[in-house]
């Protein structure tokens, strides 16, 4: 048909797998990385730096436990300092993976297959980094298990009315389901590594991890079923986790924290920051391991569109908050927002607005959306901006509470900074190990969206 050729040229997107790869080519591209004896030198360099930072983090945690939380800058009135900022920052990043795997799956977005695997891995590692901060924030770390409602002879229970406790449940549920989802997707690909293994050690390890996968029709049938159910379970979790995190702030009466739009606004921000992190990692990873045929420019462009869309949602929330602060007629609300934009922390507020609202605007142009240097700059700016968003929320509201006599200016200590930097060490150590030893692209799923898998459509 002539009309279909014009349709394709004007409206349709390029195929999701480039470079003329067939099924075997896709397998080789991804599994070849795991099987290769040669690790790129830059991988070793990055891994070395990450492990050093991780060791620094561990040292700082030891220092903190030995000395006490006084080593942080937290103090009255800003009793929630960087640890909570970092917690919310990392949880937010941990939202992209599940959104890509679950919600984009339900939306039948074929392009998610190229990036879902390592977005999910990133999610899990980010949630680990996130869980660390409240864990060490509780003061007596050795009693952290009190957070769980374990029956005990003293009849002591956690405070069920506190959103901080809901966080424990929300984040641990999210972590469990994300990890299951990720592992379920990995099983067929791990079985492929097992089947291609040339050394007994590799055969043994990947064989154990493959859980006896044989790729029979019945197994695939059950796999697809489980995948759909996990996607449906994960979808509300994408909303619930960051909504509960937002409750930590919004149930309070502190101006700037107590506002009803917080739950959806936090979720949009989380997806925004998560996608920015996926782009930040995908661009170098695909170059390093030659994945450009699987993680194509189209994938990156689609992610940039999501960044633009969620950035606009975050901008919407900033604006509505500002408007309602005025409209409410509440003097304290009005003061808080004027103080954010023009007070002592105005620099942080404007970094937030520039990075989160202004920077993504360049993605209106296709040239910018598809330019690798531009998207790297924007993605990193968004990461910075989203950290500052949490900084603005936590610090500005606390540092200017109801009593001017207790007002203060928050300054982080060296330990604060070292721990935040160290959390990147933890994150990248795990992520680099994943890139090297597990298939970073979902081989079986990518094959499913290739034209060859749908011969009837030709």
């Amino acid at each position, binding site marked *: 048909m002539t009309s279909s050729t014009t349709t394709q040229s004007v409206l349709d997107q390029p195929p999701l797998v480039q470079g003329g790869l067939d099924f075997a080519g896709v397998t080789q591209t991804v599994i070849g990385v795991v099987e290769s004896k040669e690790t790129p030198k830059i991988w070793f360099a990055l891994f070395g730096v990450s492990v050093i930072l991780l060791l620094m983090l561990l040292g700082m945690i030891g220092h903190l436990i030995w000395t006490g939380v006084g080593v942080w800058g937290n103090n009255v009135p800003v009793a929630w300092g960087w640890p909570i900022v970092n917690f919310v920052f990392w949880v937010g990043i941990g939202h992209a993976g599940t959104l890509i795997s679950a919600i984009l799956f339900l939306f039948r977005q074929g392009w998610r297959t190229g990036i879902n695997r390592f977005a999910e891995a990133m999610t899990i590692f980010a949630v680990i980094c996130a869980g660390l901060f409240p864990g060490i924030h509780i003061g007596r770390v050795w009693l952290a298990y009190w957070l769980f409602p374990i029956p005990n002879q003293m009849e002591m229970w956690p405070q069920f009315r506190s959103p901080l406790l809901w966080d424990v449940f929300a984040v641990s549920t999210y972590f469990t389901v994300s990890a299951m989802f990720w592992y379920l997707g990995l099983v067929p690909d791990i079985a492929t590594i097992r089947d291609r293994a040339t050394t007994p050690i590799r055969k043994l390890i990947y064989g154990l991890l493959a859980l006896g996968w044989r790729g029979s029709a019945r197994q695939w049938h059950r796999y697809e079923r489980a995948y759909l159910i996990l996607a449906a379970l994960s979808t509300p979790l994408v909303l619930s986790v960051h909504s509960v995190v937002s409750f930590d702030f919004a*149930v309070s009466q502190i101006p700037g924290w107590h506002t009803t739009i917080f*739950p959806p606004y936090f979720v949009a921000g989380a997806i925004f920051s998560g996608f920015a992190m996926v782009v930040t990692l995908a661009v170098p990873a695909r170059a390093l391991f030659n994945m450009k045929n699987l993680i194509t420019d189209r994938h990156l462009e689609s992610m940039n569109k999501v960044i633009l869309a969620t950035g606009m949602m975050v901008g919407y929330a900033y604006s509505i908050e500002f408007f309602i602060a005025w409209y409410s*007629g509440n003097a304290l609300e009005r003061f808080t927002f004027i103080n954010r934009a023009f007070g002592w922390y105005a620099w942080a507020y404007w970094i937030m607005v520039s990075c989160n609202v202004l920077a993504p605007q360049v993605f209106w142009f296709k040239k910018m959306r598809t330019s690798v240097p531009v998207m790297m700059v924007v993605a990193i700016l968004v990461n910075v901006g989203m950290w500052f968003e949490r900084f603005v929320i936590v610090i500005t509201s606390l540092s200017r509470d109801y009593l001017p006599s207790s007002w203060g200016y928050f300054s982080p200590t060296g330990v604060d900074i070292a721990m935040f930097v160290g959390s990147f060490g933890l994150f990248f150590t795990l992520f680099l190990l994943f890139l090297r030893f597990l298939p970073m692209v979902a081989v079986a799923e990518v094959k499913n969206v290739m034209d060859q898998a749908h011969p009837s459509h030709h």
Partner: protein
Amino acid sequence: MAHALTADELRQQTTLGEDASSWSNRLLGIGLLLLLGSAAYAFAGPEGSWRQFQFSYHIAFCFFLSMTLGALWFVTIHHLVGAKWSTTVRRVAELTMGSFPLLLVLFLPTLFSVLKGDDGLFLWVSHEKMESSHLLHGKIAFLNPTFFIVRVAIYFAVWIGFARFFASNSRAQDLNGDVMLTAKMRKLAPLAIILFALTTTFAAFDFLMALEPEWFSTIFGVYFFAGCALSFFCSTIVITMLAQEKGRLQGIVTAEHYHDLGKWTFAFVFFWGYIAFSQFMLIWYANLPEETFWFRDRFEGSWISIAVFILLGHLLIPFGGLVSRHVKRNRAALAFWAVTLLLMHWVDLYWIAMPVLHEKGVEFHMFDVSLLLGIGGVFAGLWLKRAQGGLLAPVKDPYFEASLRFKNM
């Protein structure tokens, strides 16, 4: 669908018959009669009838406005994301969003009463009352008749403008099948969605939140939007099923499309619940008097039973009812939920607005029904008139075939 539709069948399935025009006249006649009868009673009836009329009318107006806004959102998002499955039902949405000019006309009485200084519906119209409270005094810059009219003019300009843009290009495509028209609509969709978000939010503030001028909630625009989308999907399910009863759209809107429409309905039942819960829980938990009074008033007397009814009928029961794929693919079951949720959406709007008038408890009035049916009759009558002027599906859309073929896994 067992076989592909021939050109003749396609034409027959997408063109309304002769009886449509008599139906449309009947609906218009009944609607106008109800509206005029109610208006006459409002002026001639006992003390307080006019205020009751204003509230019942405003709720009915908001009900049909929300559905129409949902249609505009759906068409915009269809082009924004380059959706394919929704192509066969998109025309129904385009016909629904053609109602904006009617809604503007229907809003004129309210606008006129604001201009006249009638503070029966919107308390803020009274300058004295605004001056008497310190909290309200600070809002005069926003809540005043002049700025209100400017805002309403902007809302309708945006809505009518984009609705016309999408509908007319889509109809033009029926004739020539030009792919560039789709490209053109996609190009404008991002701007449309931004302006849609802003106008819908502020319309929610103006039309519903400002009924209690002291009250504020940053999520209220999203709450109203959830109702818009939900009522749109339910109304589309009802409309397409009615068309199929009359032997139209058969083989064009299939169980696959109903399945997806059902998924969206389910999604917005959930989303509405999420937003409603967020709004309620945060206000309840923080317990600040400047916010909690809104819920206190809506739990007063018999209003609490309406609140519980909404919790059950708008969220918990339909959530359970719509989970299963069998329900979404079963015509009777899906129709049941679509009609139920449309009614629940009206109850939701009623619960938001009416406690301002009846503070002590629920007092149903004949106007609640007569004006809903009255506006509904005119709305449906003009919908049918628009539908007669063209096809019921965008048959030359580049993705029409793909949409016909599409299957849920």
